[in-house]
């Protein structure tokens, strides 16, 4: 949630690229511009992660097509669309494909910044979820079972009983979990568990025999 925010802007119109980059630079956002979708796709592997801002109407590869191709590669940067047309159909399609916002040209700076903020919140959430998922993946099977039970609000004794282990052992697992998740409090543990990519679903899947699914 820290560091420079970077936006990757793809628009075939040079004036639009330069002006939007200029404007965003006053909003403390770094902008990398690309005159076409192909150039962005070719260079994105080495690009600083951030948000993607796509013009809808462009020669060859239009914005929706770029979004579609990225979706195939399970690319998870938030996408903002820029368009000269209030075309509801295009907007709906873009949003259904997971765009975070849709900004009509020309726009007020505030409107663009709102979209940018929204996209970076998204970006930060995604990053946090990725980190949480990563952290959770370091837990052992048994630790995961304990964590699910803890999130479900069971007491140490109840967990010990349901897992057939001693309460002391539950205590030990709990301490390990806090350590592995770099949590300073149990509240931190809960936050990480809930921000993980798909919440606790993956964990629940593994612990189905212990915890009845809702």
């Amino acid at each position, binding site marked *: 949630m820290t560091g420079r925010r970077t936006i990757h802007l793809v628009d075939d*119109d040079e004036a639009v690229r330069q002006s939007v980059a200029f404007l965003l630079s006053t*909003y403390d956002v770094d902008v990398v511009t690309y005159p076409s979708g192909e150039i962005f796709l070719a260079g994105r592997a080495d690009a600083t992660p951030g948000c993607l801002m796509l013009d809808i*109407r462009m020669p*060859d590869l239009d914005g929706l097509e770029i979004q579609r191709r990225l979706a195939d590669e399970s690319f998870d940067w938030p996408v903002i669309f820029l368009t000269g047309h209030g075309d509801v159909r295009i907007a709906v399609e873009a949003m259904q494909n997971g765009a975070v916002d849709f900004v009509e040209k*020309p726009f007020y700076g505030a409107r663009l910044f709102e979209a940018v903020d929204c996209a970076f919140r998204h970006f930060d959430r995604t990053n946090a979820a990725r980190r949480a998922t990563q952290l959770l993946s370091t837990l052992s099977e048994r630790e995961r079972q304990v964590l699910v039970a803890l999130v479900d609000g069971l007491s140490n004794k109840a967990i010990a009983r349901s897992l057939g282990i001693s309460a002391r052992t539950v205590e030990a697992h709990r301490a390990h979990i806090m350590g592995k998740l770099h949590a300073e409090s149990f509240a931190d543990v809960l936050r990480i568990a809930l921000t993980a990519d798909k919440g606790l679903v993956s964990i629940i899947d593994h612990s189905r025999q212990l915890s009845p699914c809702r």
Partner: protein
Amino acid sequence: MASFSPPVALFARAMPPIGTAPADPETREALALFATHVADRAVLLTDPDGAILFCNDGTERLFGYDPRHLVGCDVADLMTGDVQQARRDRHRAIRATTVRFETRCLHVGCGPFDADVTITPIPGDGGRLRAFGYSIVDISDRKAAERKLAESEAHMRSVLATVPDAMVVIDDRGRIQSFSAAAERLFGYREAELVGSNVSVLMPLDHRARHDAYISRYLRTGEQRIIGSGRIVVARRKDGSEFPMELSVGEAKSGNGRIFTGFIRDLSDQQRAELRVRELQDELIHVSRLSAMGTMASTLAHELNQPLTAIAAYLEAARRLVCQTAHDGTRVGEAMDAAGREALRAGQIVRRLRTFVARGENERQVEPLAPLIEDASRLALTGAREFGVRAFIKLDPAADDVFADRVQVQQVLVNLIRNALDAMRGAAVADLTIRTRRDGDVIRISVIDTGSGLPSAQIPRLFEAFATTKPDGLGLGLSISRTIVEAHGGRIWAEAGAVSGSIFHFTLPAARSGSGS
């Protein structure tokens, strides 16, 4: 009147002397011989009652009778046979010294003929009426000629009365000789008012003085300005109103000088109709231009949106920079400069569009071709880049200026280019080429695409109204393009491309005559 016998006493009193007969017997005899043998007329003497006393050789020629057999016959038998009429004629001759009239006479073999008859009473001793002298001349040839002339004049009159075009005949001094019925209707004058007047009364005041000079120049130089060819001029009615007319003048030489016949056709209605047609055509061309821009509206809106977006972004950025306590003036200046440039760019787009949709003056003038094509293709190619179209413009330096209505020619170009873009949608290669070439006195402009091409069956009908190859086309674009090109004296046609696609050509008159190279 009651008595047809001449009252001799009265005659005696009234009888004036008629010349002096030659006293010399030889001369008298010669005179008698002359009268007897003169062949071009019949010379007869009758007694006071009309019985023939003598007739000469000419009588035989005129009437076919042996003169000897005529002696004693009533002279009336040689004419209409009306004895009483013959007596009245003699009576008139007595009262008037001599009488001359035309009548019908009868040739015994050939039938009636026209004759000129002179009757002269011849006094005897003591003023007594001695005889009547008849001199009869055959005038049937002259009468026939006169009849013919009268007929042709009547014919002429009837033609004059019925020709739909007004006709005015003037002499070589410009005086009106005749004025047809149609001319009377057209100008509001009666023929009688005008005959003898100078024809310039039919002209607008400012032309009047010049007409006499025109005629005298023609008579002097023989140089024909209007004779033999029609010309459109303005005429003036009796009520002072003026109207356009087509005037054709013919010339004829008559016995005493020349006459000029002017045929006049009133063009008011025709010109009104032509004007209306032109107005409607202009309207259609204009509407179709609007409609062409209508179909491009979303593309143009997009095109305008780009600079507007940039302007808004630069200004917002500049505002934010200015609000910072320690702002960087250079950056603000940069943003302002860029915003200004983009505003001008937007203005250019609007200017092109506005010129294009404006109701033009429909004025043809010398137009440099390069900027005309440049503007039209910019407009027409708006948004084309998004479909991956590459555009090429190849201008022949010899094809520089055309004589044309700029906007209308741009309309043709926009139409052809938009068609080409439509045809190339989805094509693997989408290259559009606009080429100019000079062909003598005309400039040929070609729009070449690599699109789907034309079905050859469509080519002949392409330029007809409502013929369209597009599912949502009205089929007016090409027909209006043809209207425009043909109004410019050019030609428009289509052909299949060398490899793929199609080529549309049209020609315009070059502003400068061809140099050949």
